[in-house]
């Protein structure tokens, strides 16, 4: 091979690299490990982690993954392919993305879904930029204080650099303060408002009237939410949202210490050409068969370059497959039943906590599968006790406030055992 290339050594392949910047040393890296050693190395590291019975949420939920999901996503024809540019040999990927889009549109009852985005936080930031691009000469986006703080920091970071002015809508007793929203939405230059459902305290808010107020002021309503919850809860479209975004992790994706997850973005038909990210469409092939293809690409960075609606050039495809298979196997009834079980477990747990005499609800507001309670003792000491006994006992939200989440994976026995520790 060297002869055909016309060089005498591998080194000579780099003769065009100036000598002074060639790397001539040995990398300061560990020595190569055999497969067995690699496995043992990671097993040892894994032992340094502690697996806990999870009562925490705050955006990441311990839902069950049916066995069939893992089996499908490990199929290497899916796993080792790239973005489906060559439609003729990528129908597998294109087909499931079309199904994913269809399912997400069903779940949120919106018209359109894109092929997925990195995660819920960046999808929300993208929605913010989309609103600004769709609104003419508007540079302000309202965000409710009841939006998750981690999502908010990402949104604010994007806003800072993109030149978007973020104005916070105040919260009042755990929910968005409607009067403050109504006042701020009417101000000049507002492109949209971001709200969250269920909100950062787990409260299911009443957003009646929000979309109308936004639309009266030519602004868009963006609703961030936990995907799986919409199998039961009133949907973004039913609230009148123009853009629905959030994380799809709740659809059976493992917690995996924070990622990879999958951001979803759905919108009204009217906004389709403003939507960032990949979109798969149905068409025909030269033989007259139904076929799928990446479409509306003229919106995207590889064509529009700096004028694109976003710089995103991939989707979270494999994770989209993950939630597609999840929804396919759970089906219409299963996703709903999992949600209802989570609801029942969470409400049972709330009752049991209150019964101990040491807890009371932080808010007298409706919730789904996550809720805040006030503890009359030291939260840190209690949470440490939970961990020592194998439980991840909620997320600390304040000096005396803990937020617990319950999924269909939590049994009555587990809840009772946790309660006994109090």
């Amino acid at each position, binding site marked *: 091979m060297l002869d055909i290339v016309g060089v005498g050594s591998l080194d000579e392949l780099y003769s065009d690299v100036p000598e002074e910047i060639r790397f001539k040393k040995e990398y300061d890296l560990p020595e190569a490990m055999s497969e067995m050693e690699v496995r043992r190395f990671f097993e040892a590291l894994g032992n340094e982690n502690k697996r806990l019975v999870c009562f925490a949420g705050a955006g990441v939920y311990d839902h069950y993954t049916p066995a069939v999901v893992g089996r499908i996503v490990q199929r290497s024809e899916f796993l080792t392919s790239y973005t489906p540019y060559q439609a003729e040999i990528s129908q597998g990927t294109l087909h499931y993305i079309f199904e994913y889009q269809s399912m997400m549109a069903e779940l949120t009852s919106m018209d359109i879904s894109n092929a997925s985005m990195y995660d819920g936080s960046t999808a929300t930031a993208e929605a913010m930029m989309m609103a600004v691009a769709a609104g*003419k000469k508007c540079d302000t986006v309202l965000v409710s204080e009841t939006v998750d703080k981690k999502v908010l920091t990402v949104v604010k970071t994007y806003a800072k650099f993109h030149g978007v002015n973020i104005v916070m809508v105040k919260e009042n007793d755990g929910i968005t303060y409607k009067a403050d929203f109504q006042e701020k939405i009417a101000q000049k230059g507002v492109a949209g408002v971001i709200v969250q459902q269920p909100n950062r305290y787990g409260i299911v808010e009443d957003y009646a009237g929000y979309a109308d107020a936004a639309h009266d002021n030519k602004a868009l309503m963006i609703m961030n939410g936990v995907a799986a919850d919409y199998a039961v809860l009133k949907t973004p479209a039913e609230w009148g949202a123009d853009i629905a975004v959030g994380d799809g992790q709740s659809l059976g994706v493992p917690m995996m210490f924070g990622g990879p997850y999958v951001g979803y973005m759905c919108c009204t038909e009217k906004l389709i*050409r403003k939507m960032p990210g990949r979109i798969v469409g149905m068409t025909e092939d030269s033989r007259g068969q139904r076929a799928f293809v990446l479409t509306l*690409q*003229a*919106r995207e960075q590889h*064509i*529009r370059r700096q*004028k694109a609606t976003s710089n995103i050039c991939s989707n979270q495809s494999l994770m989209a497959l993950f939630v597609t298979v999840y929804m396919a196997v759970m089906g219409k009834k299963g996703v709903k039943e999992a949600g209802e079980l989570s609801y029942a477990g969470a409400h049972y747990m709330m009752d049991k906590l209150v019964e101990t005499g040491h807890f009371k609800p932080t808010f007298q507001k409706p919730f789904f599968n996550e809720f805040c309670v006030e503890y009359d003792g030291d939260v840190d000491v209690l949470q440490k006790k939970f961990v020592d006994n194998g439980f991840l006992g909620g997320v600390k939200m304040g000096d005396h406030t803990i937020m617990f989440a319950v999924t269909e994976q939590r049994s009555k026995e587990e809840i009772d055992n946790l309660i006994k520790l109090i």
Partner: protein
Amino acid sequence: MAKVIEGLYYAESHEYVKVEGEFGYIGITDYAQNALGNIVYVDMPDTDDEVEAGEDFGAVESVKAASDLTSPVSGTVVEVNEALEDTPEIINQDAFANWIIKVELSDKTELDNLMDAAAYAEFCEKEAH
């Protein structure tokens, strides 16, 4: 060879203006539609929107390309060509017959900055090489 029509005003960004009284019909030239290929979508402004000479007012998309529409003149949009919403391909069929927006011109002297048919034909000739 792309078609060029006498009597219209042309911009270097390949839009034309056909003037009728106080109004101008703005579209893309035959050369531009040919370069873009199959047009699948035209992003148009709303009526009553203001356009400014040299500023973008929309975009034309084909499958693998997108081109911003730059207004050659300033004025107020009084009509958009609604036929383009469902059948954008008519621009491919006849770019000059199928204008994109009708504008009430606010400054007719701006037309002096544009090319006539002969100058534009020459400009295209150069651009092709």
